[in-house]
């Protein structure tokens, strides 16, 4: 096709953005296609009292306990990630392998290992029981399982976020008289916040939706994924769909808000 020209004779640039946008839209449709199953003919959705009560309780459990798990993950994972980001390559690879192990395991296998290691027959479990801390079917078990499930995702993401902060800026800050801790607070953290937000939201999504490990270690108190399973077993698909919609409504806003805040600050 011959090139096209505008009235003043300059060659028109073809705008390829619409092609990219069409491709992205197609991608989004493909990604969200499974959700069309929400409209499948499975009979009237059930949200009666015997379903609503446990469902509301599971929402409370998931929100509260996953938030606790996230606090622990951020409090422990951030300094660990900062340390790894400053390690030499060999030590860093070792740490990254350590972090990958719990992520690589099938969740069910991780749940079995956790219940054996922290349960009444494990050394730690026996020790904690002396202080009245139950490590199976308890809030502690729920939170600790989520910590194990989400920690690797957060730390690996946080290391990448810290790596993206130019070393020259951190050294410049130190040469301006800031101690390593103050360099971290005033330069490294603010400049890595978008990456940290992404890492946190991935850890949240992963932990919030965790089923395989949690169903072994903490069937009670039931979080939303376990409750979905209970509904499926007890009442069938019509009782699953409404809880699935609620699950999306509850799980999505927090990680999304984290992204919004990080992006807004970045472009402020």
């Amino acid at each position: 096709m011959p090139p096209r020209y505008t009235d003043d004779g300059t060659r028109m640039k073809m705008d390829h953005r619409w092609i990219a946008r069409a491709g992205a839209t197609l991608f989004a449709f493909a990604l969200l296609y499974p959700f069309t199953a929400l409209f499948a003919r499975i009979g009237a959705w059930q949200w009666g009292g015997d379903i609503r009560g446990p469902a509301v309780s599971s929402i409370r459990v998931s929100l509260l306990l996953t938030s606790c798990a996230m606090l622990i993950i951020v409090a422990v994972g951030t300094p660990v990630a900062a340390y790894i980001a400053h390690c030499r390559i060999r030590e860093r690879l070792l740490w990254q392998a350590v972090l990958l192990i719990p992520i690589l395991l099938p969740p069910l296998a991780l749940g079995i290992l956790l219940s054996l290691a922290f349960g009444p027959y494990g050394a730690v479990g026996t020790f904690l029981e002396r202080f009245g801390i139950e490590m199976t079917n308890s809030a502690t078990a729920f939170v600790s399982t989520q910590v194990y499930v989400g920690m690797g995702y957060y730390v690996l993401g946080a290391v990448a976020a810290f790596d993206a902060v130019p070393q020259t800026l951190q050294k410049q800050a130190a040469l301006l008289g800031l101690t390593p801790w103050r360099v971290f607070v005033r330069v490294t953290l603010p400049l890595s916040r978008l990456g940290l937000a992404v890492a946190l939201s991935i850890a949240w999504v992963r932990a919030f939706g965790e089923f395989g490990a949690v169903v072994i270690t903490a069937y009670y108190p039931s979080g939303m994924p376990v409750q979905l399973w209970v509904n499926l077993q007890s009442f069938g698909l019509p009782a699953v769909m409404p809880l699935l919609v609620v699950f999306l409504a509850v799980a999505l806003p927090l990680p999304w808000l984290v992204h919004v805040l990080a992006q807004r600050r970045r472009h402020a």
Partner: protein
Amino acid sequence: MLKAHIVKKRREMKVDVSLELRRGDALGLFGASGAGKSTVLACIAGIDEPDDGFVNLGNLQLFPPSLPLHRRPLGYLTQEPGLFPHLTVAENVRFGISKAAAADGEQNEWIETLRDRLHLGPLWSAPASRISGGQARRVSLARMLARKPPLVLLDEPFAGLDRRLVRELIEDLIYWSQTMGFSMIAVDHQAEILKRLCPRQAIVLEHGTIVQQGPWDELYGAPATPLLRSLLAPI
């Protein structure tokens, strides 16, 4: 004031340089690209660690052992302005000032003097990520001077700037060095810049070692090596 002997092995050569600088002096480190000038400066600044030797600044031993960067009373300006993009120009300039010092009236006056002298007033509240390259150099100069360092290290801070801007920045640096009395080591591969900044003494490096040192007249009059003769020849 500054006494240093720096030994640093590089893949292609070994840098081995001794230098001495008195209070208020300005020393130019001259040589072709890759001669080891920046390595010497980075070792004094603490960005890089020498393999051997020593670096003493007055009574303070910078190396060995390597003194942490935040305890080194020096300013270091490089080709990259290194501004903190998440902060405004004002926040960048005040970055190295402690909270206690920031409350001091004299300190604030000093910051205002820097702001006015370096024409930063109109940019003062602007995000550092949105200013031009030339403006960024002026901000990084103000940020460095805000802490009143006794020693200033300049590693080709004028690279990529137009001649007018280079001239302005050099005038500013000369003015501040005379006003504040700091010592200065400047690195550049352009002799005319170094001659203006450090008119009295220069050290010439080739392949990591000193091949000549002295006043610029001597260097121009009797260059010690063919490479130096070629570097000093007009284009």
